[in-house]
């Protein structure tokens, strides 16, 4: 092999490349000594991975688990209250217990709304999220809702069958169905006239007493299922998934790097953009194309309990916790803001924190129910703040932390 023998003599150019790559990839001790000394033993990936791991620990222990615990507690209380309502015999008792059930619903719904931005792992869908089991849609399927279906089930009483949840679509149960069952103030139904419920007189045949009774029984079954699924979610996180997130990039079977876990949390935060900003506020405000009127109160999330504004507040508080890695006043918490500060993007961190705080304050300035205040300038202002936050999420935050948007993994890059 004359050719290789000839070429194996090092030349100045060859030495240039050797030096270049030695320089580029070994990087010399001058820029590494300090950092190496500061790394605790057993942590690979330098200070950046260490920061991300601290972030993940904080998110699991201060954000995800506490939220899911509140969710499990609140839905358990909801179950008890709704079962009491269903078993109340006299009409006086029923009125009181319905009020108790409604109050429990409001508390539980706030807990569910706080969990909305945390659709990760078992709570997330199985297309976007590692370990996703679609638990969220079983607990709350909005914006996929069908009140006519709920009315139909009220009449058919299929909820009393053991395989009801196996055979039914998510629109027949969950928080959205429960809201219809607990807060419907009249005895009409939401199905079109040609639906068999009306055309065959099935709804009328049930009578007012039957409707009240069936709604209460149906609500008890649905509330029990929400409580069961919330308990399952909490257990999944406590038994294993929380640990998977904590150990991302080290011993996790789910996340090979801490950046993968970060990407997934970021993907779950896109609820802010799609659901919170656009669907919960943009559409009712008549800003998006789906609303052809000046405003569209029918597009609001909570049609019966009139909790739309409170649910937006709950979403924002959860978003704020994600940013801070816990409660805003917890100095030990490590959230996106701390990661940004680690990247020297302090101004962005401050801007995000300020805008989020402003958004929460702006919700306080809007009166509830939101349906009656859609045309007020305060509501428009709230939307603008959400839009500013959404823009920062999609532009500087994603770019600075090298976060991949959902679906980015399809195909290649260069």
């Amino acid at each position, binding site marked *: *092999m*004359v*050719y*290789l023998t*000839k*070429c*194996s*003599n*090092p030349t100045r*150019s*060859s030495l*240039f*490349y050797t030096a*270049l*790559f030695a*320089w*580029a*990839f070994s*990087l010399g001790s*001058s*820029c*590494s000594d300090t*950092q190496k000394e*500061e790394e605790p033993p057993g942590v690979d*990936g*330098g*200070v*950046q*991975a260490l*920061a991300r791991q601290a972030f993940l620990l904080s998110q699991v222990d201060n954000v995800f688990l506490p939220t899911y615990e509140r969710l499990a507690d609140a839905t358990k209380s909801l179950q008890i209250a709704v079962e009491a309502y269903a078993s109340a015999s006299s009409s006086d008792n029923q009125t009181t217990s319905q009020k108790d059930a409604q109050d429990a619903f409001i508390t539980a719904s706030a807990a569910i709304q706080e969990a909305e931005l945390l659709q990760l792992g078992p709570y997330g869908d199985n297309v976007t999220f590692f370990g996703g089991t679609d638990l969220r849609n079983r607990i709350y399927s909005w914006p996929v809702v069908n009140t006519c279906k709920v009315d139909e089930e009220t009449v058919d009483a299929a909820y009393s069958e053991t395989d009801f949840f196996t055979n039914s679509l998510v629109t027949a149960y969950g928080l959205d169905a429960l809201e219809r069952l607990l807060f419907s103030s009249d005895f009409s139904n939401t199905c079109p006239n040609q639906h068999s419920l009306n055309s065959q007189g099935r709804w009328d045949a049930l009578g007012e007493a039957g409707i009240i009774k069936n709604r209460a029984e149906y609500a008890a079954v649905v509330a029990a299922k929400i409580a069961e699924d919330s308990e399952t979610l909490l257990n999944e996180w406590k038994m294993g998934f929380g640990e998977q997130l904590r150990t991302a*990039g080290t011993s996790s079977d789910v996340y090979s*790097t801490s*950046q993968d876990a970060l990407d997934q949390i970021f993907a779950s935060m896109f609820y802010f953009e799609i659901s919170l900003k*656009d669907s919960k506020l943009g559409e009712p405000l*008549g800003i*998006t*194309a789906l*609303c052809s009127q000046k405003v569209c109160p029918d597009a609001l999330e909570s049609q019966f309990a009139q909790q739309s504004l409170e649910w937006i507040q709950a979403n924002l508080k959860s978003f704020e916790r994600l940013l801070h890695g816990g409660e805003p006043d917890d100095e030990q918490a490590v959230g996106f803001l*701390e990661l940004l*500060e680690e*990247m*020297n*993007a302090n*101004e*962005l961190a401050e801007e995000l924190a300020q805008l989020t705080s402003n958004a929460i304050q702006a919700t306080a300035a809007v009166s509830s129910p939101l349906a009656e205040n859609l045309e007020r300038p305060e509501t428009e202002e709230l939307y603008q703040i959400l839009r500013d936050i*959404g*823009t920062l999420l999609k*532009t*500087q935050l994603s*770019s*600075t932390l*090298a976060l991949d*948007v959902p*679906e*980015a993994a*399809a*195909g*290649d*890059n*260069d």
Partner: protein
Amino acid sequence: MSSQTTQLTSRLHHKLSAPKCLAALAVLRTLFGAMMVFSLCRFMANGWIERLYAEPRFFFKYPGFSWASVGSTEVMYILYSIVALASAAISIGLFYRVAVIIFCLGFCYIQLLDVTLYLNHYYLVCLISGIMIFLPLNGMWSADVALGLRKPRTHFPAWATYLLRLQVGIVYFYAAIAKFQPDWLFYGQPLSIWLHARTETWLIGPLVGLPCAPLVMSWAGFFYDLTVWIFLLIRQTRPLAYMAVILFHLSTGLLFNIGMFPVIMIVVTTVFFEPCWPQRWLSRGSFIPHSPAIGSSDTSTSHPLTPWPVLSVVTLYALLQLSIPLRAIFIPGDVLWNEQGMRFAWKVMVRSKGGDIYYRIRKSGDTRDIEISALKYLTWRQFSDMCGQPDLILQLGKHIGSEYEHRWGQPVEVRVDAWVSLNGRPPARLVDPTMNIQHLTDSGNYSRWLMPAPNTPPLIMYKASTP
């Protein structure tokens, strides 16, 4: 023409016509085909066909290629399968000419379906396969020869090797030129952002997390792109330069989600090897007997000259490839911001953009805007890709405008709120929000409706502390 010029031209003509071993190009054919089989099968096996072609509601078209449309998922699978089969046929050299034509047309068609799928290395694949159509790369080590479908051929005029070398050299050279800008060289951006997220990469992760790594690697990458093709041309430096190619592309492959790019570059860079290197390697290992006729001599003193028309076409192609990437120089503004001259110019991985975009539509004469999120039409992948690209913003805006004109039965005005963060900078407006883009034509003059690039420096990372 003076006699000196005539003499020079004649010498050049002889040089370009001189027979070179076909072996290296036959190996390139085999590797190229195998690599593309793998690449295309990945798309089918990973479910990317559905995600890239079935999920989007809107596809961005290249000017003049609006006829290239996405078929049903089944059709796309069939198309990918045909192109993959053609790749396999190229690899083994079976029905080579037909296979390479099918591959080139099919692969180019796939690239034309959606601009957001543009990748520099797939553009390179289109060009290389286009060149391969005109080269008899099935003359050696091919099923066509084994089956007697064509006569064996051991040599081919030198211009083929030189053209392929030029093509690959252009990729590296212009990739270096693209890095010759302050963000890359002075701020280590966007590498700084990307490396920060890749510190857990196997083997090299801890190194790339060091504070000085982005700047060091930015400069190393710049010098590598600027010089590697020169060292590959020089026989004495070629082995180490090729080792550098392997090391560089394996490293980038480990660090970034760049799919087939490293493999493609490692394979196509073999065109810089001596044309007879496969036979020499094989004879060295006694796999085949050493044949002086094909093994030790690339050239002979008397050989037929390549016709001038062929060389003219080759020269024209080379000049085109040299000039197309330069067009950004003649367009005012920062190419990283306005993206004019970004595609087909080998500006590989030189910017990180995060964008947000809303279209505001109103009936002409009305005062009320409705807001349309680009996400109503695009997948997240398309959205994140198009947000920083003005021509795509214009294309979708005009589509939305036409849709609403049809829906409302009257003219509409379309304005854009587009915010872009370039290399970690605070988001800045990319498009003039007062400009009605509905009746703008994509004439290439974007200065009328684009905002100037931000003049602030990119994100300067790394404060001296640990969490």
